[in-house]
């Protein structure tokens, strides 16, 4: 069953009756959750702390498995794949932006952004220009040879956005990407993310507990009692 306000056509991601419980005696974090994400759509998922937002994101990314239900990424059911197959799919079709940035400190900015292309086996002659292009698009082209230790939080998150999109994934997962940033910087990052998503027609899911951050999305849903409900845009 599709979530409210969605349609199953042209979907990048379909979640069908997902269930997940971490403790046998505990309440279900996800209880028959459904979602359809169209190509190019940007949705924000809000909810209280401990509602299961990050768990949902991990299941979508293939880093965790639901107790039951289906996760269809571009028509492929992740639950039917083994870990290696999910990993290869994630490598090619998903990008990540984390709250804690997770930029490798001993690689330069350029090397960090090239990493997904490196893993995909893109030749070096193509990796570097593509990565540089994305650094320019994220307005940090001048920092290509800098090390992360020298940079501010906002700059680090720009690097993360560039890394998430450099391999042109179908889906970007952003887990509280502005949680460590001030309001002004957070706004800049969300605008940047929005612009680049539109430029690449990638879809995105933003996990946030900030109503202001959620406003950057096309659609806002709320995770409550294990299911997604439409929230005010």
């Amino acid at each position: 069953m599709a979530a409210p306000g969605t349609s199953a056509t042209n979907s990048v991601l379909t979640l069908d009756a997902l269930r997940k419980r971490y403790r046998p005696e505990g309440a279900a974090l996800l209880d028959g959750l459904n979602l359809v994400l169209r190509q190019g759509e940007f949705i924000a998922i809000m909810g209280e702390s401990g509602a299961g937002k990050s768990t949902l994101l991990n299941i979508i990314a293939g880093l965790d498995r639901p107790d039951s239900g289906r996760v269809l990424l571009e028509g492929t059911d992740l639950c039917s794949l083994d870990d290696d197959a999910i990993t290869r799919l994630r490598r090619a079709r998903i990008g990540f932006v984390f709250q804690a940035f997770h930029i490798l400190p001993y690689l330069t900015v350029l090397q960090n952004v090239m990493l997904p292309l490196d893993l995909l086996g893109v030749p070096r002659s193509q990796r570097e220009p593509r990565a540089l292009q994305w650094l320019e698009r994220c307005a940090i082209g001048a920092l290509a040879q800098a090390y992360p230790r020298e940079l501010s939080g906002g700059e680090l998150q720009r690097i993360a956005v560039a890394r998430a999109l450099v391999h042109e994934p179908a889906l970007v997962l952003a887990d509280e990407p502005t949680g460590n940033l001030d309001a002004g910087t957070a706004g800049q990052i969300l605008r940047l993310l929005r612009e680049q998503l539109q430029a690449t027609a990638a879809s995105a899911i933003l996990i946030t507990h900030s109503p202001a951050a959620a406003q950057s999305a096309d659609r806002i849903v709320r995770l409550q009692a294990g299911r997604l409900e439409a929230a005010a845009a």
Partner: protein
Amino acid sequence: MNAGHGAWVAWRVLSLAQLREQPLRVCSTILAIGLGVALGAAVYLINTAAVTQFDQATRRLLGNADVVVRGPAAGFDEAIFATLAADAAVSVASPVLELDLALSRAHTPALKILGLDPFRAAALQPELIGALGEDTTALFAHDAIVLSRPAADALGLHRQDALPVVVGGAVKTLRVIDILPADAYQDPIGIMDIAAAQWTLERLGRLNRVDLRLRPAFEPESVRVRLGGTLPAGVFALSAQIERGRGATVTRAYRVNLDMLALVALLTGAFLVFSTQWLSVLRRRVALALLRALGVTRAQLRLALLAETAVTGVLGSTLGVVLGALAAALTLHYLGADLGSRQFAMLGAAFRIHVAALLGFVLIGTAAACAGGVLPAIQAARRPPALALKAGDAEQDLSRLPSTAAGLVLGAAGALLAWLPPIGGLPVAGYVSIAALLFGSVLLVPAATRRCLSAVPATGRLVLDTAFAQLRGSLGSTTVSLSSIIVSFSLMVAMAIMVHSFRDSFELWLGKLLPADLQLRLSSGSDTATLSVPMQNRIAALPGVARAQFRRTQPILLNAERAAVMLIARDLSSEHPADTLPLLREAPQATVAGAAPAWISESVQDLYGYELGQIVNLPLGGRTERFFIAGVWRDYSHPAGAIVIRREDYTRLTGDTTATEASVWQQPHERATAIEARIRAALAPAAALEVISSPDLRERSLQAFDRAFAITYALEAVAVLIGLIGVSVAASSTALARRAQFGMLRHIGMLRRQVLWMLASEGMALSTLAVLYGLLLGGALSLILVYVINRQSFNWSIDLSVPWLQLALLGGALIGASALTALWSGRAAMSQDPIRAVREDW
């Protein structure tokens, strides 16, 4: 993209970052593997040089012989040669007089000489005889001798030089008629014509060896057995293979023990790799999780981490073989192949590079490093990346390890294995017991640590309580850090106790055997120099001499496949033998009708199975004589065994009144140097006399003991070094991982020195636990070393003696080093300002 590419990317990201971030830690791990491989390579090269040299020497000596008939040094009737030569199975029979010839020079060991019939010997030892040159008739002169190049060089002799030798109590002069080419024989040896040797060395009508080559139609083993049945007591027919291998067999236990020590060093290094890699994986868990999130598969991550340890292994092993080769070359040059242990009584074992063997050591070291890295790699790949990306999962892995039961099972197995007898003369079960106890104890470390830490009460002092809370909260990394220190420290404790016990026992034994003021002998280890009765009387009658006792020693063969046992005829009371010998056990009866008493060393008891009170037949003077085993005594001087009989019985049975050694007691107020001078003046072959005061002999013996244990001391040092490396690696890894934590503590008001003191307290607490655990484990391992490994390897016992002061100092040093290393690592980790520290991802 293929699977290897992802692993390559992951390896690049992880390892190069590691090298940039903690180059010292990487170098320390490489060094740990290198030390282990170096010890192994050095031991291998030294042993190989010695065994190869010995093998080459005996091959040259025995040549093409199929069977060797061998008797005691005193020889057998040469009529036996005629009988053997006439045997239908024998194609060529070559008579030999093989003796260790006393030289009339101070502090010069006896020279092995072969008295040969050059024409007969040419068929059996063509390389040796061929080197004599075309004209062998010059050898027939009664005083002619040909020296090998090493002998000539050692004695500083050239052609036509004189060589004074001691025969009986007189000095005779030989003439060097030729020197063999350098490649003819690589040990010191002299060759004489057999008739000349019999005449000059007063062995008329006697031989002690006959080399036989058989006709092709005859099977050597059956001929050997048949001929052996016709020979007199103490004369054996041996296969050439056994004859060649005897020297190596005698020293096998010594060499195997050295190999085991080297293996222990390598395993200790491998364990350090494990603990280092485990802590490193814990510290890099977020980076590893990120790589998994970006698309590195589990297999690729495992491969990348294994490649990391493999590179460490290759680099460390390469360093190790270079260091090991260098150590072997230096050791062979300065200490000789026997390290002063007298296990190989020879000179000139040449250092050679064995490329294939050294490559093998590189492989072994790499494999050991990889073995240390397997479990961390598997655990890292298995860990769910989602948790690490949110943090907090670091300590879950080790808490899930089902180690306690396995540890108890291994420990129990180790304890049981220690009771098993030797296998093939080697303490195989003992070695396995040690490995089982070691690994079992390591598996018990998590449970033991948890109990110990939970038993520590709150002190009410912030710094101490925080330190212990940190240790309790990070049990996984605490345990891993502890384990590597425990392994190296316990091995060090075990070896320190074993060596101290041995040295104590050795020193006590020396005191018992050297009660006199002076010890005297004519040329160490010779078969030709003796003290006649007039010489003995002269010594006893010298001014300043209170009394003198004389001994006659000679090697006798009890078994064809074993080395000769030393027979020692000396004055001692059969009622109170313990006054003279370091007796361990005595037979209930002091006398047995028709049999003289004999006291056997522990080696003889173990190797020949003799029991107290048993009647045995010993070959003496060409006959078999009955003795009863009156006691067992402790002997560290003769690895192949020694038997003591009363000199009066020896003289009665053989008619031989000569002596080879003497002990002299001086009158009160006399000086040992004055008595030595009088002895030298009174005896003709004075230059060949070795006179040494008992204190000096004890000192020299202890120095030789220390040289023989040089490798063990080296291993102790390696174990301590690896332990300290483990301490520093653990401290630096932990400090780096907790930079944000230190920053937070500084933010909330903890002073810098308080943070450092907290780290020092953690380091000291950890290392104190490790020292206590290591003392217990090391003590248990030392019991196996002392009572099982040592006894089964060398067939002698030692009494346990614990060097408490040495252990206390070492333990204290380790605890102090831990505190200092923790402080140093903490300073480095807090070198950036606290604001930046709390902002960092890593």
